[in-house]
């Protein structure tokens, strides 16, 4: 599988970009992974796995600014670290059977402030927050998020829907998704 990913870096420019991303963000990515895993060995593994993922999606990194590259690198490694942590706890990596929420944006009460949204962020699980960040803040498409985080696209849709509902105050988070 590794050799398959390696073949996806086709040009010297992409190779340079990957090396640049590593040099520029490895320390930050390691610290993010450490904040989740609290184990240097595993955090290094998370960084390595993140770069396998980055290489797989390197064509997307081409198009984005440095700030966005930084955000993606952080989100990817955080997602991987969370998965590693969840596997250690023998818990499900992703809960695909998220109950459908009947709330849509239009149904949620209109009056909400930015401060209230900020407060509601704490109710998002790390996995929801990762997906929400890529969708709302970085405006990736669900298909791009699915590839970046290596999750099913249905899961992406469900998480976006759920995250929006929690942030706009229409639903309480349970920390599990």
């Amino acid at each position, binding site marked *: 599988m590794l050799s398959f990913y390696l073949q996806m870096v086709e040009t010297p420019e992409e190779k340079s970009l990957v090396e640049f991303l590593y040099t520029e963000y490895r320390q930050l990515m390691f610290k993010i992974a450490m904040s989740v895993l609290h184990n240097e060995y595993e955090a290094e593994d998370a960084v390595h796995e993140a770069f396998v993922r980055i290489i797989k999606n390197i064509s997307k990194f081409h198009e984005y600014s440095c700030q966005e590259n930084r955000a993606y690198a952080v989100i990817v490694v955080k997602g991987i670290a969370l998965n590693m942590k969840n596997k250690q706890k023998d818990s499900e990596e992703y809960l695909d059977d998220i109950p459908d929420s009947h709330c849509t944006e239009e149904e949620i009460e209109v009056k*909400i402030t930015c401060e209230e949204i900020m407060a509601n962020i704490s109710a998002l699980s790390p996995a929801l927050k990762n997906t929400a960040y890529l969708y709302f803040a970085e405006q990736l498409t669900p298909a791009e998020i699915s590839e970046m985080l290596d999750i099913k696209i249905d899961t992406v849709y469900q998480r976006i829907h759920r995250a929006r509902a929690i942030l706009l105050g229409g639903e309480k988070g349970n920390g599990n998704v």
Partner: protein
Amino acid sequence: MYNEMIREALRADFEREVGIAAEEFSLDHKFSRRHLRQMKRLFALSEENSAEKRGRHIPLKKAVVIAIIAVLLTAILTGASMLIYKLWDNYRIRDLDLYSLLEITDIENAPTTLEQRYELGIDLSGYKRKVHIDECFEFMAEYTNEKEKKHLVFEQNTKDVYQNVFLNTEDAIVPPVEVEINGYKGLFFESKYEDMVYIMDIDNYMFEIAGGGFTREELAEIVKTIRKTEK
């Protein structure tokens, strides 16, 4: 309208989390050799076709059987105790869950700095050289030949730096076997990523020579050329 607010809120929260992590682990991490090797592999071979660089290898199951038979025969012939992972003298390999641990115990009289530097004696024209580590106790250089799709990693370490090192032997194509080159003892293994690795004890320093795009025999010939640099 709400998406705009959500965007701003998530961005602020993201920066806050990154700031917390940076503060919690304020010192930069010194990445392990194992990690650096993994990343070097990822970058150096990112343009290679893995099918082209696949050399001859012994299937793992057969290699394990051969290794076990060799150890059993050695134990029976020499009367040695059945320490399956024992290598030469004070060197031992212990298999852990995903990796092996190489233990070295005779480090007392070994130099604690690289008092004498060594180099590879082969013709490296055509290779691009990149020094990754150059400390008084550890040196690592990578040589890449993009035209021939070959790469080499040459490391020289003091024994106390190398005394407990993880070897990337998970699902190894060839598990660690003891070797002798130019009268020096060492070990060889081929990782699941098709990296051939020789680890040699030469003049009380530990050398690691890893290669991609070489056969085992070619890499052994390269190991034979290790020589002292002129001061």
